[in-house]
């Protein structure tokens, strides 16, 4: 598979690190894994770390928006971090940053979910 996904827990924040290419083909796997993790009782918030994501198209936007809806419905917050410039461009084009906060690194993105409180 051209996309590797790592998930880890940081208190009540689920951190998902994406490595590779996120398109229609790999989106199904990302959606399935994150949805399963979001079913855990301890999860309130979601951070997507895109540091190693090298390619993303509109299928990736669909996956991100889908998880945003789910997390928001759960009463949680979702943030993203470490976005490559080429991927940032299509995110800007789609207006994703109107609803999602972006951070330079993972710890800031996790803190922004309010874990400290």
């Amino acid at each position, binding site marked *: 598979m051209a996309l590797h996904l790592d998930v880890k827990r940081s208190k009540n924040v689920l951190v998902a690190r994406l490595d590779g290419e996120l398109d*229609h*083909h790999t989106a199904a796997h990302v959606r399935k894994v994150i949805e399963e993790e979001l079913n855990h009782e301890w999860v309130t918030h979601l951070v997507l770390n895109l540091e190693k994501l090298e390619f993303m198209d*509109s299928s990736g*936007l669909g996956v991100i928006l889908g998880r945003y809806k789910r997390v928001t419905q759960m009463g949680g917050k979702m943030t993203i971090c470490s976005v490559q410039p080429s991927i940032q461009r*299509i995110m800007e084009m*789609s207006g994703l940053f109107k609803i999602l906060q972006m951070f330079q690194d993972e710890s800031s993105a996790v803190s922004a979910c309010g874990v400290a409180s």
Partner: protein
Amino acid sequence: MKPVHTNFMELCFNARSENESFARVAVAAFLSQLDPTIEDLTDIKTVVSEAVTNSVIHGYEENPEGVILIRTEIEGTKICVQITDYGLGIEDVTEARQPLYTSKPELERSGMGFTIMENFMDEVMIHSKPGEGTTIQLVKQLTPQSQQSLVN
């Protein structure tokens, strides 16, 4: 006068989702002879991915027996990529081009495919006939490497 450098390639493959990455990488590999900027190459890979994904999901509704054809032409520093499927076709092209429009919201489609194509390419032409298929023609004038520093 120096004749304009021309070249073309054609690819034909099944409408399988695993071929989406094959298609964008193959087109990018063919265009590497023009020594494009990383930005141009990323733009082209993205739009090829969008068009092929549209054929897989909408043209053939994920029937992997469908056939997708890509023709890439080079004319000097101008490139033209044509993506053709023989699937369902688009009933209303104007509606399909609208940002955020998707006929398949249940599949978590963002509806940004054509908007991305229009933003990343100089020209986007859609020829579609319901029941016969769709051809998307994408044209872009590549940025010369020497101008890259001025752009950035």
